[in-house]
């Protein structure tokens, strides 16, 4: 049969963003694939070299439009490493609350889109409806639904409003009731199982060699989480499990992320209940006029994997000399051609979705 190249993207309902997966198909079976990205490349790393830290801070929210605060928090942590500032404990707990709520919101977006790609449209309606409750919490705390611009170097912007704790705990109770419903909808659906089990299998050795991290790597079997390896903020005082899968297929990626939602809800509860009183900004801290001449590599557990920032200060100005953003999804998307061979065309949305693309972070 003649083989042909089919272009899936850049505008495609399953891609969730502008990128292109070219597949060479023989009938329905994929022989080869190529990923083309770069449609959303702004040159954030170059922009960072021209702006001061405070001016660059709000742009980090736009680094991943699904998990905004995790990149802003990572950037502020990197700058705090550079300047050797430690935020006060209350601020660290608040950051953990925001990060875990962001993780739940991000996974709900993913879960909705994953189901929708397979035709399970109820999942996107439920998932995004429940995400609204978390975005309401963000609105209450930071003033914005997405693009919070909440962490600051040395702490966070403001303290929790008085009603936040009760509302957040109620929201986590609500999430705990919803997760079994998602399991019922997706997990006990034969069609969902047929469309995800054994699809897009990524063996562990290959995953490590390709540089996959986060839920992709955990689904392949390695129990790895930056929050456990290099605990940052107050994660070493909080108790949570790291879910893993066995086969590295679409089904395992689903179970890993669903379990992560549950763990994040528990983390939010723990952080809110154990939060000490105190300041939310490091007292007496002022941004220096000149960044020290150091290099910092700061890693964090983004909902998509290992996000990291390599920051070079030059000792002469208050702008970064070099800011490198290590994006987990960049690696995952470019790695797709390495494990898609032999899949069918109808499996492509499941494989694309399993990598959880967020194009603003891929293209930067």
């Amino acid at each position, binding site marked *: 049969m003649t083989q042909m190249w089919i272009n899936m993207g850049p505008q495609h309902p399953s891609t969730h963003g502008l990128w292109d997966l070219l597949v060479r198909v023989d009938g329905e079976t994929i022989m080869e694939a190529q990923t083309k*990205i*770069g449609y959303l*490349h702004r*040159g954030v*790393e*170059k*922009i960072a070299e*021209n702006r001061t830290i405070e001016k660059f801070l709000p742009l980090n929210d736009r680094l991943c439009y699904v998990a905004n605060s995790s990149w802003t928090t990572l950037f502020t942590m990197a700058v705090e490493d550079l300047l050797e500032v430690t935020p006060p404990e209350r601020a660290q707990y608040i950051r953990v609350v925001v990060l875990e709520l962001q993780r739940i919101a991000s996974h709900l977006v993913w879960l909705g889109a994953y189901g929708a790609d397979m035709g399970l449209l109820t999942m996107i309606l439920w998932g995004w409806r429940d995400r609204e409750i978390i975005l309401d919490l963000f609105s209450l705390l930071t003033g914005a639904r997405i693009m919070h611009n909440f962490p600051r170097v040395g702490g966070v912007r403001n303290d929790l409003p008085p009603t936040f704790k009760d509302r957040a705990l109620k929201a986590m109770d609500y999430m705990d009731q919803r997760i079994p419903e998602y399991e019922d909808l997706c997990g006990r659906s034969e069609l969902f199982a047929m469309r995800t089990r054994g699809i897009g299998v990524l063996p562990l050795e*290959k995953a*490590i*060699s*390709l*540089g*996959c*991290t986060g839920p992709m790597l955990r689904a392949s079997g*390695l129990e*790895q989480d930056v929050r456990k*390896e*290099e605990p940052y903020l107050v994660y070493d005082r909080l108790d949570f499990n790291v879910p893993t899968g066995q086969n590295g297929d679409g089904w395992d990626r689903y179970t890993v992320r669903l379990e992560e939602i549950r763990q994040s809800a528990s983390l939010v509860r723990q952080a809110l209940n154990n939060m000490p009183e105190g300041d939310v900004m490091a007292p007496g801290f002022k941004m220096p006029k000149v960044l020290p001449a150091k*290099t910092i*590599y700061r*890693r964090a557990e983004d909902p998509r994997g*290992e996000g*990291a920032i*390599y920051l*070079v200060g030059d000792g002469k100005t208050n702008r970064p*000399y*070099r800011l*490198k953003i*290590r994006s987990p999804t*960049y*690696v995952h998307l*470019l*790695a797709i051609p*390495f494990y898609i061979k032999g899949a069918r065309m109808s499996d492509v949305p499941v494989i694309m979705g399993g990598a959880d693309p967020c194009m603003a972070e891929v*293209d*930067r």
Partner: protein
Amino acid sequence: MMGTAATQKAGEENGSAGAPPAAGGPGGFQQRVLGELGRLQGTVTESSVTGPRRMLAKVAPDKIVEVCRLLRDAGFEHLSALTCVDYDSELQVIYLLWSYKDRCLIELRAAISGAEPKIASVTSVWTGAEFHEREAYDMFGVVFEGCPNLKRVLLPDEWSVFPLRKSFKVESIHEKRKRIEAEKAKAAKAAAPAAAPASEPAQPPKQGGTPDGAPAPKGGGAP
């Protein structure tokens, strides 16, 4: 810095970091790695522990594949990032390796020349290095010899600039507006026809890219 057999700071003295590695942390592993790196005379010029889970080593660029393979077999299975930093005198290629088992990060720095940046590719050690190398090529113009698919990944394929080099200057929209207004004011003031080119040929055009997609001519130093 390029492969000079400078004095190696072996890890035994552990003089570079502030505190010695914490007990129960990757201290023993770090010492072992430093020992192995210390055996590579002339290849690894400085290796040190720079923090509780951080190590640093400066590597000669022609031996980078050997060092990476050694480190991967020693436990650094994960290539976290591969990037470059453009200094005046040199271009440093940075490899950031993480060990899942021993939970330690090592940063390798290989210094290559800014005028003709070339280094061997480490895709034979980690398949995923290809992605980072493509981006480094795209942004800096570094040619990774042996990389299977060294094409542009983020910028349009037909562009010929390497934006993250320091010689590529970007002007913001506000600066562009001010510059245009200043030029107009100058042209209006000097009503005589021989007025304008006083400022033009002295510096290369600063505009990063005109709206029709034509890239600016490359600054000096980009290949």
